[in-house]
């Protein structure tokens, strides 16, 4: 599929925003409602999970829009967990036999266990090749199988391409779409056959309506200036950026990600224009609160 075709497909999916759980607010096809998922923290970084609709304001291109849908209930989640298996990264991630460190596997297992029954995960890797997991599943045994059988260290870090491949793999899934990358955060170049580069990664995130969560593993001061891009991409998509200095920190870090994903607000609004273009989006809450939500969205196309 060409990039152009992919974009068209993704656009079609993005224009029909839907949430699947019957007990939660549902956006029906054709309503032109756009969903935004927001994480709110107080001044000390603690999650604030109990706000009402009135606490939020949404702006499109600087103009306020009405919030027509609101929910504090976790929406169904599809996660593409992408593990950086590059040679440099690998020395912190795995053993010489290719198995993930037990601490890493435990952290991932705990993350899977913390998800809701309706949530699903696929596990992929990127290094010498980019391999998005085939099965989107909630089955811990299948996740464990992939971690045991399909993680191989070696190669470089085709980071942006891997993120795009993961986004595309979720583009047709309902509800929230999250790409969660466990990586050293340093892109080392491209592989044949994959789109995705720093210059267009934000656009892919917008068009696939994907949130990027990144866990950068490694000492905080190592290559810090090079990993800034990953942080920017994550935050612009409404996702999150975390640092885990070592494997020992992964359990806590994955738990924070899971906690965030359980406490996101759903805000829905109807854009004033249907021009098929990307528009700026700002979400604010009360004083002293920080809101993380995607910073742009793709308006539905004209009919």
């Amino acid at each position: 599929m060409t990039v152009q075709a992919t974009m068209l497909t993704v656009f079609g999916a993005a224009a029909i925003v839907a949430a699947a759980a019957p007990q939660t607010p549902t956006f029906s096809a054709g309503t032109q409602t756009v969903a935004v998922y927001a994480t709110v923290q107080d001044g000390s970084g603690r999650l604030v999970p109990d706000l009402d609709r009135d606490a939020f304001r949404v702006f499109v291109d600087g103009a306020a829009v009405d919030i027509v849908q609101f929910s504090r209930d976790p929406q169904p989640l599809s996660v593409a967990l992408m593990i950086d298996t590059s040679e440099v990264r690998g020395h912190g991630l795995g053993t010489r036999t290719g198995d993930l460190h037990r601490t890493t596997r435990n952290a991932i297992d705990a993350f899977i266990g913390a998800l809701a029954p309706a949530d699903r995960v696929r596990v992929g890797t990127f290094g010498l090749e980019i391999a998005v997991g085939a099965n989107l599943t909630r089955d811990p045994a299948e996740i464990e199988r992939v971690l045991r059988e399909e993680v191989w260290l070696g190669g470089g870090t085709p980071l942006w391409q891997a993120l795009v491949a993961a986004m595309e793999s979720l583009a047709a899934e309902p509800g929230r779409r999250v790409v969660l990358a466990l990586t050293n955060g340093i892109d080392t170049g491209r592989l044949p056959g994959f789109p995705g580069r720093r210059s267009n990664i934000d656009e892919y995130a917008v068009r696939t309506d994907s949130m990027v969560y990144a866990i950068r593993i490694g000492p905080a001061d190592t290559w810090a200036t090079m990993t800034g891009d990953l942080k920017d991409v994550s935050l612009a998509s409404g996702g999150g950026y975390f640092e885990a200095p070592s494997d020992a920190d992964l359990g806590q870090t994955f738990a924070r990600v899971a906690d965030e994903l359980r406490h996101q607000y759903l805000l829905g609004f109807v854009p004033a224009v249907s021009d098929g273009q990307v528009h700026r989006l700002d979400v604010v809450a009360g004083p002293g609160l920080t809101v993380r939500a995607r910073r742009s969205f793709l308006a539905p196309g004209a009919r």
Partner: protein
Amino acid sequence: MTIRVLVSGIACAVAVLMTSVVAAQREAGAAVTSHVVFTTSTSAAAVTIDTAGLVARSNGVIVPIVDVAAAPPLSLVVIVDVTSSVSEAMVGFVWDGRGKANDARPSGMRVADSPSALFLSPLLRGVVRAMAAGDRVRFGRVADAPELGREFATDAATLGRAARWVVDVPADVRHGRTPIWDAVDMAVSALEAERGRRRAILLVTDGLSTGNRVGLDAVIERAAHADVAVFVVGEAWGNPRSARGWSLVDRTDAPWFRMTGASTSPFGHLQRLARATGGVFLADGHDGGPVPERRFRDVMNLLHRSYSVTVASPLLPGESATLSILSPDPAVEVHVRDRYRR
């Protein structure tokens, strides 16, 4: 006598009768045939086999061997992993050297071989030319997705075209997933229709399996029960070695440092696959060892020296059991599927 007592009596009689029938069936045994390869400690075909001294066990219990014969003609699916990891290696990073030291961006530097340079001639010479009369071969490949060629064939011209199709794969699809287990699963499906023949798979791969829909355990189970033996030629990975066809993917004059290549060994999975299905694992390309053509010939030779061993199984239809066959000669290794189903 009440009706209730009468019914109970009939039920008891039926139960006793059924138990007797089942016991009789188990005692009589059903003929179950498995294909077997005998090798020496160096994985070469064993020349002298004492078939009269073989001992077969089902679920650990000795069962009679009712027949040992040369295996029927071969139906073979050859699956070649043409993904980049088989023929490319990351040899270092190039730093662009612009700006401050901390701003320098690394760019991966790879050396690459081509599937054609690595495998075309070995497939033609090591497999097609090594076929015996009556053999049927079908080619397949793994490159992001598993694919099988159109059909089984017996003639060199058709198979030559199929072999070229295997290696003529665009670079665009060689850097994605490597669903090796899915490919084996697909090959088992293709072989199920090849009844009354020695059914086997020749899998050529470095074992870096990713993106599978089915897992290794499920594939082993299915192949073993279908008596499809998987022979594996395990390619050294991250180690392109062809004298021609090399290319430096990212060229630069900037300083670079050499990365270690493979840091992992995926052969454990491949060895388990071969062992459980009655195949043989052969490593290739390590320490200047055998090259693909020779390994392919080794596999064809083993397959042509296969036997069909039939045992009287105590299982009832639908039941499963472990299976083992031992040779009286400790120098001979017996390769047979490790489970079967009646």
